[in-house]
């Protein structure tokens, strides 16, 4: 009954968050959920404090979309921005939505 999907959680400095949200949808994600956060990390070089912290973005996606997202992150985000990303397995009820 429950279907398997991937949950991608991304924490990114505020100034880039809006662009990333657009990119996620472009990669095929059908939705996302964002909330404000702050934190510390190994890099810590960013403008985010001044912009008011980080944004924590979650998106539940299929395997294929996951691939596309990770690809995008690797080219356009990881090299430059204060960003953290982790992936986990989740199950959803209404699988046509994700």
């Amino acid at each position, binding site marked *: 009954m429950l279907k398997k999907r991937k949950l991608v959680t991304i924490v990114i400095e505020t100034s880039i968050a809006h662009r990333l949200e657009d990119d996620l949808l472009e990669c095929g994600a059908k939705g996302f959920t964002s909330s*404000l956060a702050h934190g510390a990390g190994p890099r810590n070089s960013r403008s985010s404090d*001044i912009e008011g912290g980080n944004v924590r973005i979650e998106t539940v996606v299929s395997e294929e979309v996951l691939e596309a997202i990770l690809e995008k992150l690797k080219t356009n985000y990881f090299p430059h921005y204060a960003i953290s990303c982790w992936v986990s397995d989740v199950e959803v009820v209404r699988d046509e939505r994700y």
Partner: protein
Amino acid sequence: MDGLQLALTNLTSPPVLAFALGLLATALRSDLRLPDAVYQALSIYLLLGIGIKGGVALGQSSFEELAAPLVGTLILGAVVPVAAFYLLSFFTRLDAVNRGALAAHYGSTSLVTFTAGIVFLEALQMQVEGYVNTLLAVLEIPGIIIGLALASRGINRQMSWGESLREILTGKSIFLLAGGVLLGFLTGTAGYARIEIFFGGLFTGVLTLFLLELGMVAGRRIKDLKEAGIGLFLFGTTFPLMAGALGVLVGQITGMSVGGSAALGILSASASYIAAPAAVRLALPEASPGIYLSASLGITFPFNLVIGIPTMLAISQLLEGFGL
């Protein structure tokens, strides 16, 4: 009032003290923290508010009054970032990308420095033309774009200017500032009267709270300063004086008052750390925030608070003495 007293008046204004308190909070490892949502709201308030004031002042000024200062400010907005870019190769060994990023910051303006300057000038009962708020909005944008253009020579990838410009100009800081000018211009003094307590009366208080948090942010960056190197430090303290003096000169030449010229000097001396970092981050990810934020927020901002602001007034008074 002598120099020392001037400096003291400036240093004991609530916003400046709040910034120091924020530095202290970080030094003491206090768990104080303005919630992210509130910090963002304060900056929205400040940007929109100053834009509105600029717009209202714009509507009240005659074309004759405004034309010369406006043209002067635009020239300033073009000259300062270019000067910063080339002087930086003298002061530091940074590459074009990072020099362009810094040029964008020093070519743009700092709302907070400006407001602290206005608080200072008003405490001395100096008259300041209302339209300096308009000049702030005008000076905000060209510096950023010129800085990015200069930096773009240093990057390998193709920069997509169209999309970048859209992202920058609709970025929240610039949108609020420009939108505020529009709103203020259209609503005029009659409309502004209805929101004056909110956007005017509360402004310095809100700024005080904002600077408390900004002081904490700056405090957390202090260790970055060590890595910045002596060259950046020298640039961050001498360039504002040069750019500021130029700004005062432009003010005096274009017929502004002593106070108004000092305010334009403060604007020109100030380095952006709200609009410019966001824009540079989006369009120029190769540049290191550790460098440009350290310089603008860590070095130049406190320098201006303590030394730059009263110096600009002194220069303005000096030039006035020359009968300029």
